[in-house]
């Protein structure tokens, strides 16, 4: 396996792809990646620098932590403040600021907030501490949603009385529709997220081609993968085609992972979700189904967070839509750095502002 991974980091193969992209991209195009891991890969390997002047690479709303809206973060924080509650979540969520605080700040204040590697770990905590109520805060796209869905199923199977999930999960395809419908956003092709597509396959993206004529390519995360995705997009554009193609066949089947999709459908139903910078997109949230109400933190730990407020001067919302580049924000590198982040795009390790700050000279 490691030799295969080496192959997808091979500079010679990468160089060939760069040459092919230069030969193919004769017309200007704007390609948006909608996955925080792509944002990091593009920045880390300096892929913007090897693109021809005709190819513009933009980051979109692909970082689940970054697109989580303030009222939702405030709700999680308020839950952590309830007596007897242990709030468990992924490490990515800890430092993200809500309107007034963050989970890391709450932990420092003495609230019981714990980072887990797998949602299943939170079930073990609930079993070991029966006098506490353990909430698992689930954030993430279709890649992560089935892991939480299966944890909910497992909690129900074990009939755990002191565990529930707060789902802030979101689904990707309809957010792409919101972007192509937004007149301020000008995207000619999408670099689609590899591991979201591992779960959902190609079908949910077909509307991009059939309704909007926008080509898209499901792409992996090694430098050669990303270049292959860009090359396949420029090829579709130059040939006047619009299709959903896969450049990451070792991890993505056209049909996705039906067992994972079934797990999502069993535990969750679509709900409206607020995306930072985009607003409410109908049907892109995942709410626990009524039959799992016993495991729904919104039911089990009712609480009302304070009125939300937005961070003054922070342009994360426009950065997430690809309208503003990170270094065009007045706070970038000045008030807002990875050490002292103000907005979520700088907090999250895969936010576009953090990627630009870490790997480029802009704003210095």
């Amino acid at each position, binding site marked *: 396996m490691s030799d295969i991974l080496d192959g997808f980091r091979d500079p010679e193969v990468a160089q060939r792809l760069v040459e092919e992209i230069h030969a193919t991209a004769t017309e200007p195009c704007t390609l948006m990646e909608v996955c925080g891991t792509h944002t990091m890969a593009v920045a880390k390997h300096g892929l913007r620098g090897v693109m021809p002047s005709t190819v513009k690479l933009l980051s979109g709303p692909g970082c689940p932590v970054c697109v989580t809206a303030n009222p939702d973060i405030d709700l999680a924080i308020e839950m952590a403040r309830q007596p007897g509650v242990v709030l468990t979540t992924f490490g990515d969520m800890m430092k993200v600021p809500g309107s007034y605080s963050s989970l890391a700040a709450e932990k420092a204040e003495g609230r019981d907030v714990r980072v887990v590697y*797998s949602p299943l770990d939170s079930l073990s905590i609930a079993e070991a501490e029966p006098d506490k109520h353990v909430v698992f805060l689930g954030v993430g796209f279709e890649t992560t949603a089935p892991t939480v869905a299966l944890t909910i199923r497992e909690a129900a199977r074990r009939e755990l009385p002191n565990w529930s999930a707060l789902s802030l999960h979101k689904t990707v395809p309809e957010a792409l529709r919101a972007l192509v419908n937004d007149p301020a956003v000008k995207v000619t092709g999408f670099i689609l997220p590899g591991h979201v597509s*591992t779960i959902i396959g190609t079908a949910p993206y077909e509307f991009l081609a059939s309704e909007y004529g926008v080509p898209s390519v499901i792409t992996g995360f090694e430098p050669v993968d990303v270049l292959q995705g860009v090359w396949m997009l420029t090829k579709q554009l130059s040939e006047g085609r619009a299709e959903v193609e896969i450049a990451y066949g070792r991890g993505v089947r056209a049909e996705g992972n039906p067992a994972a999709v079934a797990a999502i459908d069993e535990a969750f139903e679509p709900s409206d979700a607020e995306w930072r910078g985009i607003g409410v997109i109908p049907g892109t949230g995942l709410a626990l189904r009524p039959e799992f109400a016993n495991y729904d933190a919104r039911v089990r730990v009712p609480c009302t967070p304070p009125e939300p407020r937005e961070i003054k001067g922070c342009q994360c919302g426009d950065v997430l839509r690809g309208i503003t580049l990170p270094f065009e924000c007045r706070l970038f590198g000045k008030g807002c750095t990875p050490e002292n982040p103000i907005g979520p795009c700088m907090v999250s390790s895969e936010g576009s502002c953090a990627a630009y700050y870490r790997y480029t000279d802009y704003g210095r």
Partner: protein
Amino acid sequence: MCLAIPARLVTEPNDIQMVEVDILGVRRHVSVMMTPSATQGDYVLVHAGFAIQIVDDEFAAETLEMLRTMGIKHAEELAAEAEAEEAAAESVSP
């Protein structure tokens, strides 16, 4: 966040579909509930303690082979075209 890392199954799944995997030398227990057909020796993509897909390593090898030869083929085609053009140019010249 949507990072998933290739890992090799070093045991067969147990009765609750947990399995031990090797992730670049580190051993971990993950769930194969989403990849019920995974068996010992398979590579899977692991995300948040779950295997989310079996890695198609044959496909990966074919992709690499295609990409490795692509530039060469392209260059050969260009050379052949150039040769043909030269030959054509020569044939019309006096």
